[in-house]
């Protein structure tokens, strides 16, 4: 039997080293991404691109964020068991929110809206959902019950 070739061993070592680096950096990156003192656009791009997110198989996922929970419940309504629910699906769900959902949304966002009005004068629904996804560090899960 042959041994593993050197070139493969070297690449494996390099990748393992970089994986360890990635794992060790994740906490710091996540702290940066959830710090509202920095511009959302930068934080979101970094979170999307390099942060290791929480990916879970076969769970009925419970979210801390009332908005993300609401978006998730809307999204899974028509899904089959075992379908993957990812962060981008939930973010897209915002587009389907209409006037009819006003009451639910008002309830979910009441406190947030007040503080955001004080801070920015305008409330950006999409931006708020991005912040909440980063706080949950939500990647994906498979829908099950």
């Amino acid at each position: 039997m042959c041994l593993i070739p050197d070139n493969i061993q070297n690449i494996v070592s390099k990748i393992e080293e970089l994986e360890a680096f990635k794992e060790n950096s994740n906490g710091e990156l996540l702290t940066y991404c959830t710090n509202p003192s920095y511009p959302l656009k930068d934080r979101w791009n970094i979170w999307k691109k390099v942060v290791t997110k929480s990916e879970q198989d076969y769970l009925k996922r419970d979210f801390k964020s009332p908005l993300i929970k609401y978006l998730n419940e809307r999204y899974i309504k028509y899904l089959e068991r075992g379908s993957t629910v990812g962060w981008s699906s939930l973010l897209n769900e915002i587009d389907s929110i209409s006037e009819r959902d006003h009451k639910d949304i008002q309830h979910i966002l009441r406190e947030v809206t007040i503080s955001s009005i004080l801070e920015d004068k305008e409330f950006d629904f999409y931006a708020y959902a991005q912040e909440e996804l980063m706080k949950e560090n939500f990647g994906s899960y498979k829908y099950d019950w």
Partner: protein
Amino acid sequence: MKIGQIITNTLIKINVMIPESIKQKVKKLDEAAKIRENSQKEFLSFCRNKSYPLTDRWRRSLSNFNYEKIRIVNKLSKTKIIKYVSNT
């Protein structure tokens, strides 16, 4: 949130760039992704080469191949996965 904090945050939002330590980490992680991507073919050749032990090829394929491809066939046997990877 106190008014002072709101003003400070707004000023920071206008002026603050991505911290240098974060930039460096992102750069290194970008490089890592490239290394991983560029080495796929080489790994593939190794994994489908039967002159090497299956255990080694299997272990390497799990740790270094694109995870999505492995996940699709996670119910197949080890040998079938190696075959699957070889065909992609």
